[in-house]
Protein backbone atom coordinates (compact mmCIF):
# COMPACT_ATOMS: atom_id res chain seq x y z
CA UNK A 1 0.00 0.00 0.00
CA UNK A 2 2.65 2.46 1.06
CA UNK A 3 4.96 1.37 -1.74
CA UNK A 4 2.12 1.86 -4.19
CA UNK A 5 1.50 5.33 -2.87
CA UNK A 6 5.20 6.13 -3.17
CA UNK A 7 5.47 4.82 -6.71
CA UNK A 8 2.34 6.59 -7.87
CA UNK A 9 3.53 9.63 -5.96
CA UNK A 10 6.64 9.71 -8.10
CA UNK A 11 4.57 9.34 -11.28
CA UNK A 12 2.23 12.04 -10.01
CA UNK A 13 5.17 14.33 -9.28
CA UNK A 14 6.64 13.89 -12.74
CA UNK A 15 3.20 14.51 -14.23
CA UNK A 16 2.99 17.77 -12.30
CA UNK A 17 6.46 18.79 -13.42
CA UNK A 18 5.58 17.98 -17.03
CA UNK A 19 2.40 20.02 -16.81
CA UNK A 20 4.17 22.97 -15.23
CA UNK A 21 7.18 22.95 -17.55
CA UNK A 22 5.72 25.12 -20.29
CA UNK A 23 4.00 27.56 -17.95
CA UNK A 24 7.17 27.95 -15.97
CA UNK A 25 9.28 28.53 -19.08
CA UNK A 26 6.98 31.24 -20.43
CA UNK A 27 6.67 33.00 -17.12
CA UNK A 28 10.33 32.74 -16.27
CA UNK A 29 11.45 34.29 -19.53
CA UNK A 30 8.89 36.84 -20.55
CA UNK A 31 7.13 37.40 -17.24
CA UNK A 32 3.80 36.62 -18.90
CA UNK A 33 1.55 34.44 -16.78
CA UNK A 34 -0.18 32.55 -19.56
CA UNK A 35 -3.62 31.91 -18.11
CA UNK A 36 -4.73 30.26 -21.35
CA UNK A 37 -2.29 27.45 -20.60
CA UNK A 38 -4.98 25.03 -19.49
CA UNK A 39 -6.96 25.76 -22.63
CA UNK A 40 -3.90 25.01 -24.80
CA UNK A 41 -3.51 21.71 -22.98
CA UNK A 42 -7.10 20.70 -23.65
CA UNK A 43 -6.88 22.05 -27.20
CA UNK A 44 -3.86 19.86 -27.85
CA UNK A 45 -5.76 16.86 -26.48
CA UNK A 46 -8.86 17.38 -28.61
CA UNK A 47 -6.75 18.39 -31.60
CA UNK A 48 -4.80 15.14 -31.48
CA UNK A 49 -8.02 13.19 -30.99
CA UNK A 50 -9.52 14.81 -34.09
CA UNK A 51 -6.41 14.16 -36.17
CA UNK A 52 -6.51 10.52 -35.15
CA UNK A 53 -10.23 9.91 -35.45
CA UNK A 54 -11.38 12.30 -38.15
CA UNK A 55 -8.33 12.60 -40.39
CA UNK A 56 -7.05 9.12 -39.65
CA UNK A 57 -3.46 10.17 -39.16
CA UNK A 58 -1.08 7.81 -37.38
CA UNK A 59 -0.16 8.75 -33.82
CA UNK A 60 3.46 9.39 -34.79
CA UNK A 61 2.36 12.06 -37.29
CA UNK A 62 -0.40 13.56 -35.19
CA UNK A 63 1.76 14.29 -32.16
CA UNK A 64 4.43 16.42 -33.87
CA UNK A 65 1.76 18.17 -35.93
CA UNK A 66 -0.21 19.08 -32.82
CA UNK A 67 2.88 20.19 -30.92
CA UNK A 68 3.83 22.46 -33.81
CA UNK A 69 0.30 23.80 -34.13
CA UNK A 70 0.11 24.65 -30.43
CA UNK A 71 3.52 26.27 -30.56
CA UNK A 72 2.31 28.37 -33.49
CA UNK A 73 -0.79 29.28 -31.53
CA UNK A 74 1.38 30.49 -28.66
CA UNK A 75 3.45 32.64 -31.02
CA UNK A 76 0.31 34.09 -32.61
CA UNK A 77 -1.13 34.77 -29.17
CA UNK A 78 1.85 36.96 -28.43
CA UNK A 79 2.08 38.63 -31.83
CA UNK A 80 -1.60 39.47 -32.13
CA UNK A 81 -2.80 40.09 -28.59
CA UNK A 82 -0.14 40.21 -25.93
CA UNK A 83 2.28 42.52 -27.71
CA UNK A 84 -0.29 45.28 -27.34
CA UNK A 85 -0.70 44.93 -23.60
CA UNK A 86 2.85 43.94 -22.76
CA UNK A 87 4.05 45.16 -19.41
CA UNK A 88 0.58 45.77 -18.01
CA UNK A 89 0.38 42.66 -15.88
CA UNK A 90 -3.32 42.81 -15.15
CA UNK A 91 -4.20 43.31 -18.82
CA UNK A 92 -1.98 40.38 -19.76
CA UNK A 93 -3.72 38.16 -17.23
CA UNK A 94 -7.18 39.27 -18.30
CA UNK A 95 -6.41 38.88 -22.00
CA UNK A 96 -4.92 35.38 -21.69
CA UNK A 97 -7.63 34.35 -19.26
CA UNK A 98 -10.27 35.57 -21.74
CA UNK A 99 -8.73 33.58 -24.58
CA UNK A 100 -8.48 30.46 -22.44
CA UNK A 101 -12.06 30.85 -21.34
CA UNK A 102 -13.25 31.26 -24.92
CA UNK A 103 -11.38 28.15 -26.10
CA UNK A 104 -12.48 25.93 -23.21
CA UNK A 105 -16.11 26.96 -23.23
CA UNK A 106 -16.23 26.62 -27.00
CA UNK A 107 -15.26 22.98 -26.60
CA UNK A 108 -17.93 22.57 -23.93
CA UNK A 109 -20.48 24.17 -26.24
CA UNK A 110 -19.50 21.91 -29.14
CA UNK A 111 -20.20 18.94 -26.90
CA UNK A 112 -16.76 17.49 -26.42
CA UNK A 113 -17.78 15.62 -23.29
CA UNK A 114 -17.80 11.89 -22.81
CA UNK A 115 -15.74 8.77 -22.51
CA UNK A 116 -15.04 8.37 -26.21
CA UNK A 117 -12.65 11.32 -26.09
CA UNK A 118 -9.52 9.50 -25.10
CA UNK A 119 -6.11 9.25 -26.69
CA UNK A 120 -4.47 5.90 -27.39
CA UNK A 121 -1.61 4.79 -25.15
CA UNK A 122 1.78 4.57 -26.84
CA UNK A 123 2.20 0.92 -25.95
CA UNK A 124 0.22 -1.65 -24.01
CA UNK A 125 1.65 -3.72 -21.24
CA UNK A 126 3.17 -3.08 -17.90
CA UNK A 127 6.46 -3.13 -16.12
CA UNK A 128 7.18 -4.93 -12.88
CA UNK A 129 8.74 -2.72 -10.22
CA UNK A 130 9.40 -4.82 -7.12
CA UNK A 131 6.04 -6.12 -5.96
CA UNK A 132 4.08 -3.65 -8.10
CA UNK A 133 3.11 -3.23 -11.71
CA UNK A 134 3.37 0.05 -13.55
CA UNK A 135 1.68 0.40 -16.91
CA UNK A 136 3.87 1.47 -19.79
CA UNK A 137 2.17 4.81 -20.34
CA UNK A 138 3.19 5.90 -16.86
CA UNK A 139 6.70 4.73 -17.62
CA UNK A 140 6.59 6.91 -20.72
CA UNK A 141 5.52 9.86 -18.57
CA UNK A 142 8.56 9.30 -16.36
CA UNK A 143 10.85 9.09 -19.37
CA UNK A 144 9.44 12.10 -21.20
CA UNK A 145 9.25 14.22 -18.05
CA UNK A 146 12.81 13.43 -17.05
CA UNK A 147 14.29 13.90 -20.49
CA UNK A 148 12.41 17.14 -21.17
CA UNK A 149 13.60 18.64 -17.91
CA UNK A 150 17.14 17.58 -18.78
CA UNK A 151 16.81 18.93 -22.30
CA UNK A 152 15.58 22.29 -21.05
CA UNK A 153 18.39 22.49 -18.56
CA UNK A 154 20.89 21.83 -21.33
CA UNK A 155 19.09 24.15 -23.75
CA UNK A 156 19.06 27.19 -21.46
CA UNK A 157 22.73 26.80 -20.64
CA UNK A 158 24.51 25.72 -23.78
CA UNK A 159 22.66 27.16 -26.77
CA UNK A 160 22.59 30.74 -28.00
CA UNK A 161 18.79 30.95 -27.96
CA UNK A 162 18.63 29.50 -24.48
CA UNK A 163 21.22 31.95 -23.23
CA UNK A 164 19.26 34.79 -24.84
CA UNK A 165 16.19 33.53 -22.97
CA UNK A 166 18.01 33.71 -19.69
CA UNK A 167 19.46 37.10 -20.56
CA UNK A 168 16.00 38.58 -21.07
CA UNK A 169 14.80 36.91 -17.90
CA UNK A 170 17.59 38.40 -15.83
CA UNK A 171 17.61 41.95 -17.11
CA UNK A 172 15.59 42.99 -20.11
CA UNK A 173 17.27 46.35 -20.72
CA UNK A 174 20.79 45.02 -20.54
CA UNK A 175 19.79 42.17 -22.84
CA UNK A 176 18.37 44.71 -25.29
CA UNK A 177 21.70 46.55 -25.25
CA UNK A 178 23.42 43.32 -26.23
CA UNK A 179 21.20 42.98 -29.27
CA UNK A 180 18.68 40.48 -28.01
CA UNK A 181 15.24 41.27 -29.40
CA UNK A 182 12.91 41.11 -26.43
CA UNK A 183 9.74 40.74 -28.55
CA UNK A 184 11.27 37.89 -30.51
CA UNK A 185 12.35 36.11 -27.34
CA UNK A 186 8.90 36.60 -25.79
CA UNK A 187 7.26 35.17 -28.93
CA UNK A 188 9.59 32.20 -28.79
CA UNK A 189 8.97 31.71 -25.10
CA UNK A 190 5.23 31.58 -25.62
CA UNK A 191 5.53 29.18 -28.52
CA UNK A 192 7.93 26.97 -26.53
CA UNK A 193 5.45 27.06 -23.67
CA UNK A 194 2.65 26.05 -26.03
CA UNK A 195 4.68 23.24 -27.55
CA UNK A 196 5.68 21.83 -24.17
CA UNK A 197 2.07 22.08 -23.09
CA UNK A 198 0.92 20.05 -26.11
CA UNK A 199 3.65 17.49 -25.51
CA UNK A 200 2.55 17.12 -21.89
CA UNK A 201 -1.04 16.72 -23.04
CA UNK A 202 -0.37 13.91 -25.51
CA UNK A 203 1.74 12.02 -22.99
CA UNK A 204 -0.50 12.44 -19.95
CA UNK A 205 -3.99 12.38 -21.45
CA UNK A 206 -4.01 8.71 -22.58
CA UNK A 207 -4.27 7.74 -18.89
CA UNK A 208 -7.71 9.26 -18.51
CA UNK A 209 -10.28 10.94 -20.72
CA UNK A 210 -10.01 14.42 -22.16
CA UNK A 211 -12.39 16.79 -20.46
CA UNK A 212 -12.99 20.53 -20.58
CA UNK A 213 -12.69 20.89 -16.82
CA UNK A 214 -9.19 19.44 -17.01
CA UNK A 215 -8.24 22.79 -18.55
CA UNK A 216 -8.96 24.66 -15.35
CA UNK A 217 -7.36 21.95 -13.21
CA UNK A 218 -4.20 21.93 -15.30
CA UNK A 219 -3.91 25.70 -15.04
CA UNK A 220 -4.24 25.45 -11.26
CA UNK A 221 -1.72 22.63 -11.10
CA UNK A 222 0.78 24.56 -13.17
CA UNK A 223 0.19 27.66 -11.05
CA UNK A 224 0.59 25.66 -7.85
CA UNK A 225 3.87 24.10 -8.91
CA UNK A 226 5.27 27.38 -10.22
CA UNK A 227 4.23 29.42 -7.19
CA UNK A 228 5.43 26.88 -4.66
CA UNK A 229 8.72 26.41 -6.47
CA UNK A 230 9.24 30.08 -7.16
CA UNK A 231 7.99 31.57 -10.42
CA UNK A 232 10.60 31.05 -13.09
CA UNK A 233 12.97 28.87 -11.08
CA UNK A 234 13.71 25.54 -12.76
CA UNK A 235 15.15 23.75 -9.74
CA UNK A 236 12.36 25.08 -7.55
CA UNK A 237 9.84 23.70 -10.04
CA UNK A 238 11.25 20.20 -9.79
CA UNK A 239 11.35 20.32 -5.99
CA UNK A 240 7.85 21.77 -5.79
CA UNK A 241 6.37 19.16 -8.09
CA UNK A 242 7.82 16.40 -5.91
CA UNK A 243 6.59 18.04 -2.71
CA UNK A 244 3.12 18.53 -4.15
CA UNK A 245 2.97 15.20 -5.96
CA UNK A 246 3.94 13.21 -2.89
CA UNK A 247 1.63 15.25 -0.67
CA UNK A 248 -1.22 14.64 -3.11
CA UNK A 249 -0.77 10.93 -3.30
CA UNK A 250 -0.45 10.57 0.48
CA UNK A 251 -3.60 12.69 0.90
CA UNK A 252 -5.57 10.64 -1.56
CA UNK A 253 -4.41 7.48 0.21
CA UNK A 254 -5.49 8.57 3.67
CA UNK A 255 -8.27 11.11 3.10
CA UNK A 256 -9.84 10.38 -0.26
CA UNK A 257 -9.37 11.90 -3.69
CA UNK A 258 -11.67 14.85 -2.95
CA UNK A 259 -8.86 16.38 -0.96
CA UNK A 260 -6.21 16.12 -3.69
CA UNK A 261 -6.91 19.46 -5.31
CA UNK A 262 -7.25 21.09 -1.90
CA UNK A 263 -3.61 20.19 -1.22
CA UNK A 264 -2.59 22.23 -4.27
CA UNK A 265 -4.72 25.18 -3.34
CA UNK A 266 -3.60 25.08 0.28
CA UNK A 267 0.03 24.96 -0.84
CA UNK A 268 -0.50 28.03 -3.03
CA UNK A 269 -2.12 29.91 -0.16
CA UNK A 270 0.52 28.94 2.38
CA UNK A 271 3.44 29.77 0.14
CA UNK A 272 1.96 33.07 -1.00
CA UNK A 273 1.22 34.02 2.57
CA UNK A 274 4.58 33.05 4.01
CA UNK A 275 7.12 33.27 1.24
CA UNK A 276 5.62 34.64 -1.97
CA UNK A 277 8.81 34.21 -3.97
CA UNK A 278 8.49 30.45 -3.52
CA UNK A 279 10.85 27.82 -2.18
CA UNK A 280 13.70 28.62 -4.53
CA UNK A 281 12.82 32.00 -6.01
CA UNK A 282 15.37 34.66 -5.22
CA UNK A 283 14.62 37.49 -7.57
CA UNK A 284 12.01 40.23 -7.34
CA UNK A 285 11.68 40.15 -3.57
CA UNK A 286 10.58 43.78 -3.56
CA UNK A 287 8.09 43.53 -6.38
CA UNK A 288 5.75 41.05 -4.85
CA UNK A 289 4.97 42.51 -1.47
CA UNK A 290 5.16 45.73 0.48
Amino acid at each position, binding site marked *: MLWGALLYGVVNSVTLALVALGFNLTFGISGI*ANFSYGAMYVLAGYGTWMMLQRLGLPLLAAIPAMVLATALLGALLYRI*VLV*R*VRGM*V*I*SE*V*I*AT*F*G*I*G*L*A*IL*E*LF*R*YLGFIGFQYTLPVFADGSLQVGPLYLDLQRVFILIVGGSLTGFLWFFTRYTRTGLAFRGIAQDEYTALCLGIDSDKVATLSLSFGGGLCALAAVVILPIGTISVDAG*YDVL*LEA*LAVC*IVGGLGSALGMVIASFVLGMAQSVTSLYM*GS*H*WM*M*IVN*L*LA*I*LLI*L*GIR*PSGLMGKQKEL*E*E*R*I
Partner: protein
Amino acid sequence: MRSRGSGCTGMNKSRTRKERVDRGVKARSEDVFALSSWREILYLLAPRLLPVLVLFLLALVLPVYWKKVLVSSAIFGILAMSWDFLVCAGLVSLGQALFFGVGAYLAGTFHHLWGWPWWLTLPLASLLGGGICTLLLAPVLRLRGIYFSMVTLVLPLMLVRIIEATKALGGTEGLSGIQGFPGLGVELVLSVGMFLAALFGYRRILGTDYGLVMQGIRDNDRSVISSGINAHWFRAQALFLAGCMGALAGAFMTHAYMFVGMPVFALDYSILPITAAVVGGMGSIAGPALGAFILVPLSEALRALGALRIVFYGVFLVIFIVGLPEGLFHYLKRKYHQFERWTAVES
Protein backbone atom coordinates in the same frame (compact mmCIF):
# COMPACT_ATOMS: atom_id res chain seq x y z
CA MET B 1 -2.95 61.09 -32.48
CA ARG B 2 -3.30 59.88 -35.96
CA SER B 3 -1.12 56.90 -36.60
CA ARG B 4 2.29 57.50 -38.04
CA GLY B 5 2.31 58.56 -41.67
CA SER B 6 -1.40 58.21 -42.31
CA GLY B 7 -1.84 61.97 -41.96
CA CYS B 8 1.11 62.63 -44.15
CA THR B 9 0.19 63.40 -47.72
CA GLY B 10 3.13 62.92 -50.01
CA MET B 11 6.54 64.31 -49.34
CA ASN B 12 5.65 67.64 -47.92
CA LYS B 13 4.12 68.34 -44.61
CA SER B 14 0.43 69.03 -44.12
CA ARG B 15 0.50 66.66 -41.15
CA THR B 16 -2.41 66.87 -38.81
CA ARG B 17 -2.99 65.69 -35.31
CA LYS B 18 -6.06 65.32 -33.19
CA GLU B 19 -6.52 67.85 -30.45
CA ARG B 20 -8.88 67.60 -27.50
CA VAL B 21 -10.30 70.74 -25.95
CA ASP B 22 -12.61 71.06 -22.94
CA ARG B 23 -16.07 72.27 -23.79
CA GLY B 24 -16.90 75.77 -22.60
CA VAL B 25 -19.77 74.55 -20.52
CA LYS B 26 -17.44 72.21 -18.64
CA ALA B 27 -15.14 75.05 -17.70
CA ARG B 28 -18.08 77.23 -16.68
CA SER B 29 -19.73 74.59 -14.55
CA GLU B 30 -16.65 73.55 -12.64
CA ASP B 31 -17.07 75.89 -9.71
CA VAL B 32 -19.78 77.74 -7.87
CA PHE B 33 -20.45 79.53 -11.19
CA ALA B 34 -22.35 76.44 -12.18
CA LEU B 35 -25.28 78.00 -10.38
CA SER B 36 -25.31 80.88 -12.85
CA SER B 37 -27.67 79.24 -15.30
CA TRP B 38 -29.93 76.23 -15.79
CA ARG B 39 -27.82 75.05 -18.68
CA GLU B 40 -24.74 74.59 -16.51
CA ILE B 41 -26.76 73.00 -13.71
CA LEU B 42 -28.31 70.60 -16.17
CA TYR B 43 -24.88 69.81 -17.60
CA LEU B 44 -23.79 68.75 -14.13
CA LEU B 45 -26.97 66.98 -13.10
CA ALA B 46 -27.87 65.12 -16.29
CA PRO B 47 -25.25 62.35 -16.03
CA ARG B 48 -26.23 61.77 -12.41
CA LEU B 49 -29.99 61.91 -12.77
CA LEU B 50 -30.11 59.97 -16.00
CA PRO B 51 -29.29 56.51 -14.55
CA VAL B 52 -31.70 57.03 -11.65
CA LEU B 53 -34.57 58.05 -13.91
CA VAL B 54 -33.88 55.41 -16.53
CA LEU B 55 -33.66 52.63 -13.94
CA PHE B 56 -36.91 53.49 -12.19
CA LEU B 57 -38.67 54.04 -15.50
CA LEU B 58 -37.47 50.63 -16.71
CA ALA B 59 -38.61 49.07 -13.45
CA LEU B 60 -42.09 50.40 -14.17
CA VAL B 61 -42.56 49.64 -17.84
CA LEU B 62 -40.67 46.40 -18.53
CA PRO B 63 -42.49 43.08 -18.88
CA VAL B 64 -42.12 40.63 -15.99
CA TYR B 65 -39.36 38.55 -17.54
CA TRP B 66 -37.19 41.58 -18.24
CA LYS B 67 -37.89 42.94 -14.76
CA LYS B 68 -36.14 39.83 -13.47
CA VAL B 69 -33.28 40.60 -15.83
CA LEU B 70 -33.15 44.13 -14.46
CA VAL B 71 -32.84 42.72 -10.94
CA SER B 72 -29.95 40.45 -11.85
CA SER B 73 -28.26 43.25 -13.82
CA ALA B 74 -28.42 45.45 -10.73
CA ILE B 75 -27.02 42.67 -8.56
CA PHE B 76 -24.20 41.92 -10.97
CA GLY B 77 -23.64 45.67 -11.18
CA ILE B 78 -23.12 45.78 -7.42
CA LEU B 79 -20.68 42.90 -7.64
CA ALA B 80 -18.81 44.61 -10.49
CA MET B 81 -18.65 47.88 -8.56
CA SER B 82 -17.21 46.14 -5.53
CA TRP B 83 -14.57 44.64 -7.85
CA ASP B 84 -13.77 48.07 -9.19
CA PHE B 85 -13.54 49.58 -5.72
CA LEU B 86 -10.85 47.03 -4.90
CA VAL B 87 -9.03 47.98 -8.10
CA CYS B 88 -9.12 51.61 -6.97
CA ALA B 89 -7.20 50.52 -3.88
CA GLY B 90 -4.70 48.61 -6.02
CA LEU B 91 -6.09 45.14 -5.29
CA VAL B 92 -7.01 43.19 -8.41
CA SER B 93 -9.23 40.25 -7.56
CA LEU B 94 -9.67 37.30 -9.90
CA GLY B 95 -12.20 35.71 -7.58
CA GLN B 96 -15.02 38.05 -6.78
CA ALA B 97 -17.07 34.87 -6.37
CA LEU B 98 -15.48 34.63 -2.92
CA PHE B 99 -17.39 37.66 -1.65
CA PHE B 100 -20.53 36.68 -3.51
CA GLY B 101 -20.44 33.10 -2.30
CA VAL B 102 -19.68 33.92 1.32
CA GLY B 103 -22.61 36.34 1.41
CA ALA B 104 -24.90 33.87 -0.31
CA TYR B 105 -24.01 31.01 2.02
CA LEU B 106 -24.31 33.22 5.11
CA ALA B 107 -27.81 34.35 4.18
CA GLY B 108 -28.77 30.77 3.30
CA THR B 109 -27.42 29.40 6.58
CA PHE B 110 -29.11 32.10 8.65
CA HIS B 111 -32.45 31.24 7.17
CA HIS B 112 -31.88 27.50 7.07
CA LEU B 113 -30.76 27.17 10.69
CA TRP B 114 -32.64 29.89 12.50
CA GLY B 115 -35.35 30.89 10.06
CA TRP B 116 -34.45 34.57 10.07
CA PRO B 117 -36.40 36.71 7.59
CA TRP B 118 -34.74 38.33 4.57
CA TRP B 119 -34.71 41.85 6.01
CA LEU B 120 -32.52 40.58 8.82
CA THR B 121 -30.25 38.23 6.84
CA LEU B 122 -29.42 40.78 4.13
CA PRO B 123 -27.68 43.35 6.36
CA LEU B 124 -26.20 40.70 8.63
CA ALA B 125 -24.81 38.61 5.78
CA SER B 126 -23.42 41.76 4.21
CA LEU B 127 -21.54 42.97 7.29
CA LEU B 128 -20.46 39.55 8.46
CA GLY B 129 -19.52 38.53 4.90
CA GLY B 130 -17.36 41.62 4.52
CA GLY B 131 -15.69 40.83 7.82
CA ILE B 132 -15.08 37.17 7.00
CA CYS B 133 -13.60 37.97 3.59
CA THR B 134 -11.36 40.62 5.10
CA LEU B 135 -10.13 38.16 7.71
CA LEU B 136 -9.62 35.44 5.06
CA LEU B 137 -7.54 37.76 2.91
CA ALA B 138 -5.83 39.64 5.75
CA PRO B 139 -2.75 37.37 5.81
CA VAL B 140 -2.01 38.12 2.16
CA LEU B 141 -2.80 41.84 2.15
CA ARG B 142 0.87 42.62 1.83
CA LEU B 143 1.04 40.91 -1.54
CA ARG B 144 1.05 43.08 -4.61
CA GLY B 145 -0.30 42.81 -8.11
CA ILE B 146 -0.55 39.38 -9.63
CA TYR B 147 0.35 37.57 -6.39
CA PHE B 148 -2.72 38.93 -4.65
CA SER B 149 -4.81 38.06 -7.73
CA MET B 150 -3.68 34.45 -7.59
CA VAL B 151 -4.75 34.11 -3.96
CA THR B 152 -8.18 35.45 -4.79
CA LEU B 153 -8.41 33.11 -7.76
CA VAL B 154 -7.61 30.15 -5.54
CA LEU B 155 -9.78 30.90 -2.49
CA PRO B 156 -13.28 30.40 -3.95
CA LEU B 157 -12.16 27.26 -5.78
CA MET B 158 -10.83 25.91 -2.51
CA LEU B 159 -14.00 26.73 -0.59
CA VAL B 160 -16.02 24.83 -3.21
CA ARG B 161 -13.81 21.77 -2.87
CA ILE B 162 -13.96 21.94 0.92
CA ILE B 163 -17.75 22.11 0.86
CA GLU B 164 -17.75 19.22 -1.59
CA ALA B 165 -15.36 17.13 0.51
CA THR B 166 -16.79 17.80 3.96
CA LYS B 167 -20.43 17.87 2.82
CA ALA B 168 -20.96 20.87 5.12
CA LEU B 169 -23.65 23.47 4.38
CA GLY B 170 -25.69 21.04 2.34
CA GLY B 171 -22.67 19.77 0.39
CA THR B 172 -23.26 19.27 -3.31
CA GLU B 173 -27.03 19.52 -2.83
CA GLY B 174 -26.98 23.04 -1.45
CA LEU B 175 -29.63 24.59 0.75
CA SER B 176 -33.05 24.96 -0.82
CA GLY B 177 -36.31 26.32 0.49
CA ILE B 178 -34.84 29.69 1.43
CA GLN B 179 -37.43 32.38 1.96
CA GLY B 180 -38.11 34.46 -1.13
CA PHE B 181 -39.03 38.14 -1.34
CA PRO B 182 -42.70 39.00 -0.78
CA GLY B 183 -43.12 40.27 -4.33
CA LEU B 184 -41.39 41.32 -7.50
CA GLY B 185 -41.98 44.96 -6.60
CA VAL B 186 -40.00 44.66 -3.37
CA GLU B 187 -37.24 42.81 -5.20
CA LEU B 188 -37.04 45.51 -7.88
CA VAL B 189 -37.03 48.50 -5.57
CA LEU B 190 -34.56 46.85 -3.23
CA SER B 191 -32.11 45.80 -5.93
CA VAL B 192 -32.22 49.07 -7.86
CA GLY B 193 -32.01 51.03 -4.61
CA MET B 194 -28.98 49.02 -3.47
CA PHE B 195 -27.42 49.44 -6.88
CA LEU B 196 -27.79 53.21 -6.86
CA ALA B 197 -26.63 53.44 -3.25
CA ALA B 198 -23.50 51.46 -4.13
CA LEU B 199 -22.89 53.52 -7.27
CA PHE B 200 -23.14 56.93 -5.63
CA GLY B 201 -21.71 55.76 -2.32
CA TYR B 202 -18.55 54.33 -3.84
CA ARG B 203 -18.09 57.34 -6.10
CA ARG B 204 -18.52 59.63 -3.13
CA ILE B 205 -15.95 57.69 -1.10
CA LEU B 206 -13.45 57.90 -3.94
CA GLY B 207 -14.00 61.64 -4.18
CA THR B 208 -13.06 62.30 -0.57
CA ASP B 209 -9.56 62.51 0.91
CA TYR B 210 -10.08 59.00 2.22
CA GLY B 211 -10.62 57.72 -1.32
CA LEU B 212 -7.64 59.72 -2.48
CA VAL B 213 -5.44 57.70 -0.12
CA MET B 214 -6.87 54.50 -1.61
CA GLN B 215 -6.01 55.66 -5.12
CA GLY B 216 -2.62 56.73 -3.89
CA ILE B 217 -2.01 53.19 -2.71
CA ARG B 218 -2.94 51.97 -6.17
CA ASP B 219 -0.66 54.41 -7.94
CA ASN B 220 2.37 54.18 -5.68
CA ASP B 221 2.05 52.24 -2.47
CA ARG B 222 5.57 52.91 -1.27
CA SER B 223 5.20 56.67 -1.39
CA VAL B 224 1.93 56.41 0.54
CA ILE B 225 3.72 54.37 3.18
CA SER B 226 6.58 56.82 3.34
CA SER B 227 4.12 59.64 3.97
CA GLY B 228 3.39 57.96 7.26
CA ILE B 229 0.07 56.39 6.27
CA ASN B 230 -0.65 52.80 7.21
CA ALA B 231 -1.35 51.44 3.75
CA HIS B 232 -2.21 47.95 4.99
CA TRP B 233 -4.90 49.26 7.28
CA PHE B 234 -6.38 51.23 4.39
CA ARG B 235 -6.28 48.19 2.15
CA ALA B 236 -8.03 46.14 4.81
CA GLN B 237 -10.74 48.80 4.97
CA ALA B 238 -11.09 48.81 1.19
CA LEU B 239 -11.41 45.04 1.31
CA PHE B 240 -14.13 45.31 3.94
CA LEU B 241 -16.07 47.95 2.00
CA ALA B 242 -15.89 45.92 -1.19
CA GLY B 243 -16.57 42.66 0.62
CA CYS B 244 -19.74 44.04 2.21
CA MET B 245 -21.28 44.93 -1.13
CA GLY B 246 -20.17 41.68 -2.76
CA ALA B 247 -21.66 39.69 0.10
CA LEU B 248 -24.84 41.76 -0.09
CA ALA B 249 -25.17 40.87 -3.77
CA GLY B 250 -24.73 37.19 -2.92
CA ALA B 251 -27.24 37.31 -0.06
CA PHE B 252 -29.77 39.01 -2.30
CA MET B 253 -29.36 36.33 -4.97
CA THR B 254 -29.90 33.60 -2.38
CA HIS B 255 -33.27 35.06 -1.46
CA ALA B 256 -34.18 35.83 -5.06
CA TYR B 257 -33.49 32.24 -6.20
CA MET B 258 -34.64 30.77 -2.87
CA PHE B 259 -31.61 28.49 -3.13
CA VAL B 260 -27.92 28.51 -2.39
CA GLY B 261 -25.44 25.92 -3.59
CA MET B 262 -21.91 25.40 -4.80
CA PRO B 263 -22.42 27.34 -8.06
CA VAL B 264 -22.21 30.61 -6.09
CA PHE B 265 -18.45 30.09 -5.97
CA ALA B 266 -18.36 29.35 -9.70
CA LEU B 267 -16.12 31.10 -12.16
CA ASP B 268 -19.07 33.02 -13.65
CA TYR B 269 -19.30 35.29 -10.65
CA SER B 270 -15.60 36.06 -10.90
CA ILE B 271 -15.55 36.55 -14.66
CA LEU B 272 -18.61 38.71 -15.04
CA PRO B 273 -17.44 41.56 -12.78
CA ILE B 274 -14.09 41.62 -14.57
CA THR B 275 -15.72 41.59 -17.99
CA ALA B 276 -18.15 44.31 -16.94
CA ALA B 277 -15.29 46.43 -15.64
CA VAL B 278 -13.18 45.91 -18.75
CA VAL B 279 -16.10 46.73 -21.04
CA GLY B 280 -17.27 49.67 -18.96
CA GLY B 281 -13.91 51.05 -17.93
CA MET B 282 -11.92 50.34 -14.80
CA GLY B 283 -11.34 52.73 -11.94
CA SER B 284 -14.52 54.75 -12.28
CA ILE B 285 -17.16 52.66 -10.44
CA ALA B 286 -19.71 53.88 -12.98
CA GLY B 287 -17.95 51.99 -15.76
CA PRO B 288 -18.46 48.49 -14.33
CA ALA B 289 -22.06 49.41 -13.48
CA LEU B 290 -22.60 50.39 -17.11
CA GLY B 291 -20.81 47.25 -18.24
CA ALA B 292 -23.04 45.05 -16.11
CA PHE B 293 -26.13 46.68 -17.57
CA ILE B 294 -24.83 45.93 -21.05
CA LEU B 295 -23.56 42.40 -20.44
CA VAL B 296 -26.33 40.85 -18.35
CA PRO B 297 -29.20 41.78 -20.69
CA LEU B 298 -27.00 40.81 -23.64
CA SER B 299 -26.28 37.40 -22.17
CA GLU B 300 -30.00 37.07 -21.40
CA ALA B 301 -30.79 37.83 -25.02
CA LEU B 302 -28.21 35.25 -26.03
CA ARG B 303 -29.64 32.66 -23.65
CA ALA B 304 -30.57 30.46 -26.58
CA LEU B 305 -26.87 30.00 -27.25
CA GLY B 306 -26.33 28.31 -23.88
CA ALA B 307 -22.72 27.76 -22.94
CA LEU B 308 -21.61 29.86 -25.90
CA ARG B 309 -22.30 32.92 -23.75
CA ILE B 310 -19.14 32.39 -21.72
CA VAL B 311 -17.23 32.17 -25.00
CA PHE B 312 -18.59 35.60 -25.82
CA TYR B 313 -17.45 36.89 -22.44
CA GLY B 314 -13.97 35.63 -23.18
CA VAL B 315 -13.92 37.20 -26.62
CA PHE B 316 -15.33 40.46 -25.23
CA LEU B 317 -12.57 40.56 -22.66
CA VAL B 318 -9.87 40.23 -25.27
CA ILE B 319 -11.41 42.66 -27.75
CA PHE B 320 -11.95 45.38 -25.17
CA ILE B 321 -8.63 44.96 -23.38
CA VAL B 322 -6.80 45.25 -26.71
CA GLY B 323 -9.09 47.52 -28.70
CA LEU B 324 -10.60 49.91 -26.18
CA PRO B 325 -8.53 49.54 -23.02
CA GLU B 326 -10.01 52.67 -21.44
CA GLY B 327 -13.52 51.22 -21.54
CA LEU B 328 -16.86 52.63 -22.62
CA PHE B 329 -17.43 54.91 -19.65
CA HIS B 330 -14.17 56.80 -19.99
CA TYR B 331 -14.78 57.10 -23.73
CA LEU B 332 -18.26 58.55 -23.20
CA LYS B 333 -17.02 60.82 -20.44
CA ARG B 334 -14.35 62.22 -22.73
CA LYS B 335 -16.88 62.88 -25.46
CA TYR B 336 -19.15 64.58 -22.93
CA HIS B 337 -16.52 66.90 -21.54
CA GLN B 338 -14.33 67.55 -24.55
CA PHE B 339 -14.54 68.01 -28.26
CA GLU B 340 -11.94 66.95 -30.77
CA ARG B 341 -10.57 68.58 -33.86
CA TRP B 342 -7.77 68.12 -36.34
CA THR B 343 -5.04 70.70 -36.21
CA ALA B 344 -2.05 71.17 -38.44
CA VAL B 345 1.35 70.30 -37.07
CA GLU B 346 4.10 72.73 -37.87
CA SER B 347 7.17 70.81 -38.92
